[in-house]
């Protein structure tokens, strides 16, 4: 579907694709019918995340490392025409003499800061670390309230044993749109934590979440959240796709509810990504994966499908029209699914086999935008011409999931 013969003008929407071998930018006009591709950027480099700052619409950061070299962050302010490396990439504090100290293996996650803090960005790393930039990604500082917290190693576990196969990660860094000081992070492993003082102190936020790989029944931390999302307009509604199910959290209760129990039993509630409707906190989508026996983590039965709920996870609907009907064994990674701001909402996911799939009607119908890209790590949507519909104001505790 992507074509180079009829480039979209003007570009209204971009899907930023981060892959194991570089980055690509898919662009579309406002109708989402004409698509083009830019790239590769950083060909051969491992790009974990590519994000456009929604506050200024021009600053783009890429978390990158080459196979041989250490991690860094690149920055562009001209939509990828030119890139400059961060003058001080994210790095842990130097350890005291005689101590081993942590080193960033790769920057995994990038999040632009609160609307009131225009140059602030956060980065999450592998192993689990949190970093902040106050100058638009040029220089990065350790968030010592987390990285040097005396309980950090207890929370994060053994980096060799308790992480994901390619290294334990701090991801899903989320800034409360109603409060710049309020941050969420999620760690694989470690669990979900929050800070109400811009990262100075942290509290586990995992009550009600299963961790069936741990011996204790309701541990305070040590969980494996795969993807955490707080709703941008109703930030007291938080969802997560966990290693052990799909959960919703209403901050009125502060206990996670396993809404994945309402998924069809034959499908289960294991997966990596979770995507929210940009305007309706009751609407979300997931991409179930095979979590049986040895955890293949592929599309179930080789028949990929998105599942969506329009009532906060009480009931779920299968969406597979247009997707492969058999022998499709790809995986969709935790940051490789996103939504745009259009109405109806566009949904996109990228696969480990290098395909980008899109639905322009909230999941009802799917088409393949592009094939043959490298293994896709992350997709992010970016509105270059925001849809005309104005977003509603941010609401606090507006409604509970049970309504």
């Amino acid at each position, binding site marked *: 579907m992507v074509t180079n013969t009829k480039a979209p003008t003007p570009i209204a929407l971009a899907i930023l694709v981060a892959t194991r071998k570089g980055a690509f930018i898919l662009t579309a006009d406002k109708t989402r019918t004409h698509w083009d591709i830019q790239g590769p950027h950083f060909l051969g480099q491992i790009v974990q995340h590519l994000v456009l700052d929604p506050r200024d619409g021009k600053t783009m950061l890429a978390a990158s490392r080459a*196979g041989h*070299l250490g991690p*860094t962050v690149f920055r562009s302010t001209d939509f990828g025409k030119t890139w400059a490396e961060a003058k001080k990439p994210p790095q842990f504090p130097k350890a005291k003499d005689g101590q081993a100290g942590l*080193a960033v293996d790769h920057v995994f996650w990038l999040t632009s800061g609160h609307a009131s803090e225009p140059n602030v960005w956060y980065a999450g790393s592998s192993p689990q670390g949190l970093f902040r930039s106050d100058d638009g990604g040029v220089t990065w500082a350790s968030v010592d309230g987390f990285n040097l917290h005396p309980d950090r190693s207890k929370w994060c576990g053994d980096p060799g044993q308790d992480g994901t196969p390619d290294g334990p990660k701090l991801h899903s860094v989320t800034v409360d749109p109603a409060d710049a000081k309020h941050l969420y992070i999620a760690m694989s492993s470690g669990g979900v934590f929050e800070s109400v003082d811009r990262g100075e102190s942290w509290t586990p936020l995992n009550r009600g979440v299963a961790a069936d790989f741990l011996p204790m029944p309701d541990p305070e931390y040590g969980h494996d959240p795969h993807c955490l999302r707080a709703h941008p307009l109703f930030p007291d509604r938080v969802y997560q796709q966990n290693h052990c199910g799909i959960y919703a959290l209403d901050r009125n209760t502060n206990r996670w509810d396993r809404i994945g129990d309402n998924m069809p039993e034959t499908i289960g509630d294991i997966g990596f990504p979770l995507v929210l409707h940009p305007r309706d906190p009751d609407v979300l989508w997931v991409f179930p994966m095979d979590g049986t026996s040895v955890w293949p983590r592929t599309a179930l039965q080789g028949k990929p499908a998105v599942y969506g709920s329009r009532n906060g996870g009480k009931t779920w609907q299968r969406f597979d029209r247009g997707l492969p009907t058999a022998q499709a064994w790809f995986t969709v990674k935790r940051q490789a699914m996103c939504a745009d701001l259009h109405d109806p909402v566009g949904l996109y996911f990228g696969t480990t086999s290098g395909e980008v799939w899109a639905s322009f009607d909230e999941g009802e119908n799917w088409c393949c935008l592009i094939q043959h890209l490298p293994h896709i790590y992350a997709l992010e949507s970016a509105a270059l011409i925001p849809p005309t519909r104005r977003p509603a104001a941010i609401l606090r505790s507006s409604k509970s999931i049970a309504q």
Partner: protein
Amino acid sequence: MNVNLPTPLVDYTSGSRNVTANGKSLAELLLDLDRQYPGIRFRMIDEQGRVRAHIKFFVDLELQRDLNFPLAVQSEVMIVAALSGG
């Protein structure tokens, strides 16, 4: 002294694989390289001062793992990005 760089680092040197730098040790040489080509050192040496997994330093064709290894003015330094998979 002459320093030969692996291809993954030539983005820092405008494409050149052969540059000159000074230092009485490998550690000092890396600091001088970073002064000339900002950012290049961190791609080879982590924040704890450890050599990254796939980086190797050869001085006069001998592998040297200690960054305090002394260098002479006429030393030939080769930095190698070793195998790192597919």
